[in-house]
């Protein structure tokens, strides 16, 4: 298998990581993230009474302390049901946009359309509101960065975002299933050119172009090392 084909295969394995786990702590982590998502959506819309909010805040503060007492998830940790780097399952599951285990994530559910194109489905709840009844434009830009960032990885030499341009065409409604499309246009050396669209039914809500630059392998390793040093630091 050629080097590029091998890298592409590794990349496609990421999709497997987005499938639901069948057992273990990872199932419960995703379940907790889902419950938190629901709480976030309801609390921003709710007129809950003070005493109840206080009790909830106290319980969460205690739970936060408890969470801090556990060992930190190591990206290279294979000693659990938790997929780990370089399996990247963990990485995707923790994504703030795709990750089922990250309560910040809507989440966007992606599927491969062909070798150079992905499509995603997403429904934004009340917590993502910008203009009345509409998705915040910042989260639209963010979703494009994620989806284009994902599809550019299918080039076999994933890069970092260099330039992202988003053109807003029509308000994107909350509470409705939206479609995100991302595709690779072409690759020139270390530059990967991509384009995306956000649709609500037939309505084009926004378009994007993303230029990604493949880093030198040592650059990525330096970032991993710097993170390790920070996490092990005082």
């Amino acid at each position, binding site marked *: 298998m050629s080097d590029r084909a091998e890298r592409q295969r590794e990349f496609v394995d990421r999709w497997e990581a987005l499938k639901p786990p069948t057992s273990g*702590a990872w*199932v*419960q*982590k995703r379940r*907790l*993230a889902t*419950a*938190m998502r*629901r*709480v*976030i959506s*309801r*609390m921003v*819309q*709710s*007129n*809950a*009474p*003070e005493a109840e*909010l*206080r009790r*909830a*805040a106290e*319980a*969460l*503060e205690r739970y*936060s302390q408890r*969470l*801090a007492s556990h*060992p*930190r998830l190591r990206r290279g940790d294979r000693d*659990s049901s*938790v997929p780990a780097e370089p399996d990247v399952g963990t990485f995707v599951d*923790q994504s*703030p946009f795709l990750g089922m285990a990250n*309560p*910040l994530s809507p989440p966007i559910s992606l599927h491969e359309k062909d070798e150079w194109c992905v499509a995603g489905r997403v429904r934004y709840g009340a*917590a*993502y509101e910008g203009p*009345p*009844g509409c998705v*915040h434009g*910042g*989260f639209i*830009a*963010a*979703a*494009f*960065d*994620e989806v284009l960032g994902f599809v550019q990885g299918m080039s076999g030499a994933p890069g*970092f*975002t*260099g*330039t*992202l*341009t*988003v053109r807003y065409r029509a308000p994107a409604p909350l509470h409705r299933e939206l479609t995100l499309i991302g595709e690779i246009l072409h690759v020139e050396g270390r530059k990967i050119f991509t384009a995306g669209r956000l649709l609500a039914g037939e309505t084009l809500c926004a378009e994007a172009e993303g230029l990604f630059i493949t880093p030198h392998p040592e650059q*990525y390793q330096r*970032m991993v090392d710097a993170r390790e040093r*920070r996490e092990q630091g005082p």
Partner: protein
Amino acid sequence: MSDEASATFDRKAHWELSPEKEAMGAWVQKRRLASAMREVIGRLVQSNAPEEELRTAADALERYADRLASHPRLKRYEGFAESSNAGDVGAFFDQSPLIGLANPLAPPIRIETTGRKSAVGTAVFGPAYEGPPGCVHGGFVAAAFDEVLGYVHSLAGTPGFTGTLTIQYRSPTPLHTELAFRCQLDRLEGRKIFASGQAFAGERLCAEASAVFIAARPGVFKDLLEARQERETERTP
């Protein structure tokens, strides 16, 4: 809402209300809950917590989500309810997914005016916002610019919507570090409002942005609010 009221809808004052205005009663606790949720989110994504404990927490949060659904829904312009100043949009900005102290999704960003046509947004992003190793996800860099540029564009006095947003990423944006999104209003051309900004980690330039906003035609906020109201009445939480 009258057109006049909608014209003042997202003037700068509204952005400033959120962190500045002292919340009372239930709102204090809502901000406290949001803050606790933020901390749990940051720790959850990094934690190797055991299955049993995660299950117990998930059970409790599911029950709490059900309970929250039993309360009356907050009207968009309610909030700081005890101060009984209905129509105070401070509550709205407190709910923003980027600056809102009462929204656990928000880092939150704090926006301050630095001149007649400029402002700075400051934020520290935690582990849940990670993209490249140890760095803020590029999507949140873009989102933060949209919010801070959205604030400075409103200094023109004609609120509108983002038309085009371009972000150029210059160097990795670190997590756990105070970032400054320095933005300014550049010029007006008819209904177009041009703004730009730079994001810094200390002295280092991490990203640059430019945006074109389109001033809203009169009544557009009112239309959106009405459409929203119609959907709300159809929808259960």
